């Protein structure tokens, strides 16, 4: 292996320090015995125990998870459909306008999206709760999905779809049997993106959540305003762990896939 020059070593250290020191501090203090967040009083896991007994937090976590799964799934379906029409639909009337409008929520300040959704829900008399959060999250994460999927569709050889039609597929079969399997990785990463966006959204959720349903970010934010408690640190540490595990599993999986492909190719070359 090559050794790093001292300049590279320093840049690497500073970069990682910026990224990870805050989290490291948070993790360390989650194991603090003391109730005072900034004073170290010995190791303890008692705040984790407190957390598990805290109904409000658990409820919020459960709501968050359901909202994230539902909204990212709906957003993926709608976003993929939108991307397909935009990229494949040819030059229908108003196409430029539509594709511009799909991307508008990307640049719209969240406060405005949240407020306008709130007004809409009040206007149509929809009680605020899980449903409204799901609708709101679907609305704004759909455009992210459609950006990811359409970039894949643009680089996709159109003639493969034509071949499917040529061999007797209806346009829908061609999409289901050929296009979708090929763009599936992009669709999956669109889903993952929508899922994480929904997980950590605070602004839009606060506009659209009602008393019956609170998401975890809202819960954390409101308890922090009363003062940072070690319980929050413990909760955040758990979330960091979940995310870290997710990232590691995902990268291992893709690494495995690459290795498997390389193995197959090697085996293929030998026959």
């Amino acid at each position, binding site marked *: 292996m090559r050794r790093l020059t001292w300049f590279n070593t320093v840049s690497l250290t500073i970069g990682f320090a910026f990224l990870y020191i805050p989290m490291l501090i948070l993790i360390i203090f989650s194991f603090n015995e003391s109730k005072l967040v900034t004073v170290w009083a010995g190791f303890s896991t008692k705040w984790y125990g407190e957390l598990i007994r805290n109904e409000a937090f658990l409820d919020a976590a459960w709501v968050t998870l359901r909202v994230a799964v539902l909204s990212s799934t709906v957003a993926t379906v709608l976003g993929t459909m939108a991307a397909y029409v935009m990229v494949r639909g040819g030059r229908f009337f108003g196409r430029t306008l539509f594709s511009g409008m799909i991307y508008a929520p990307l640049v719209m300040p969240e406060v405005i999206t949240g407020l306008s959704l709130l007004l809409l829900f009040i206007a149509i008399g929809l009680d605020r709760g899980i449903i409204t959060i799901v609708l709101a999250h679907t609305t704004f994460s759909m455009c992210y999905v459609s950006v990811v999927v359409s970039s894949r569709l643009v680089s996709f*050889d159109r*003639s*493969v779809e*034509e*071949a*499917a*039609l*040529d*061999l*007797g*597929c*209806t*346009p829908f*079969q061609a999409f289901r*049997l*050929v296009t979708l*399997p*090929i763009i599936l990785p992009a669709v999956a990463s669109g889903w993952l993106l929508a899922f994480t966006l929904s997980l950590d959204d605070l602004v839009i959720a606060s506009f659209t959540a009602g008393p019956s349903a609170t998401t975890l970010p809202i819960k954390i934010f409101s308890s922090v305003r009363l003062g940072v408690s070690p319980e929050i640190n413990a909760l955040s540490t758990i979330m960091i762990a979940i995310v870290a595990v997710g990232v590691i599993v995902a990268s291992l999986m893709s690494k495995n896939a690459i290795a498997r492909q390389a193995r*197959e*190719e090697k085996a*293929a070359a030998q*026959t």
Partner: protein
Amino acid sequence: MSDPAPTSRPDVFAPWNDPNQRPLIQFQNVTKRFGDFTAIDDLTVDIYAREFFALLGPSGCGKTTLMRMLAGFETPTEGYILLDGQDIGPVPPNKRAVNMMFQSYALFPHLTVAENIAFGLKRDNLPKDQIAARVDEMLRLVQLQKFAARKPHQISGGQRQRVALARSLAKAPKLLLLDEPLGALDKKLRTDTQFELMEIQEKTGTTFVIVTHDQEEAMTVASRVAVMDHGKMIQVDTPDRIYETPKSVYVADFIGDVNLVEGVATSHQKDGKVQIHWAEGKEPIIGTPMQPIADGTRCTFAIRPEKVHISKEHPEGKTNIMQGKIIDIAYLGNLSTYHVQIPTGEIFKAQSANTRRIERRKFTWEDNVWLWWSETAGVVLTE
């Protein structure tokens, strides 16, 4: 070079000469524009059932566009395409009894070789064992049995091309469109596959429209060849007529090797031959035009190198004799092409068979030689 296919069949297949035959495909004044670019220009042609119709032409002349219109991926800007007498304009690609092999292969990357070939058969809801049998047959045909379980990215370019070919053949359609089906194959496999295709065609009666850049291939397989340029068909004829009696300088020059001499025609004798005056103080070339041409017409005399004889001695009692010096020899194995420069500077190509071993060859560089050809060997072109 490979042996040419036998050209004389007992019953001559020439439906285009039979006014009672109804064409399978009719292009009627078809024009295709992309924006203001005209890819196909007012094209009218009939293609008959059981034909092996080859499209030949330079890159960008509209061959693929023509195929795509037949397959249903492009609609004519003007004109009609009839299949069996029916306008196929409104018929979507999946409802046409037409299969196409794409120039880019367009294999399904997520399916194995066998699944690729089975794809079209599955759409017809055939029983499983029947599909499997057909896939096996196709794999055997293109010699890819060993590769059935591989994905397209795990095989070579030539193997991919064969998968694409097998996939388009699998459904045994009424009309098969092959866009450069054999370009990536080596010589031997290509000749084998050409004969396979001809056999399939004899057996199943499928009509083939095939694009190729390989003239020898077009000559070998085609019942008729269409030479295209800028969206038009310049000449549509049987391979031998395209080669022997091209109607224009463009076709003569595009197909095979040719010597071209420009000049002015004057009539020669009553037998319809003409003299072509092509250079000051030179003997005119005597040629035989296909149609009578008027005195003083500007024309081009075209003669194939293999019809130009070459010898060391002055040929006695021959017409169209020229003297010159060999400046280059292209050795092709069975043949050699001699580039002979005559005193006025023009270069003529003469080809002869290498019936002797190379060290005992009659001519070499810088040799003074005589060229001659008969009065009927070349063609006189006015277009």
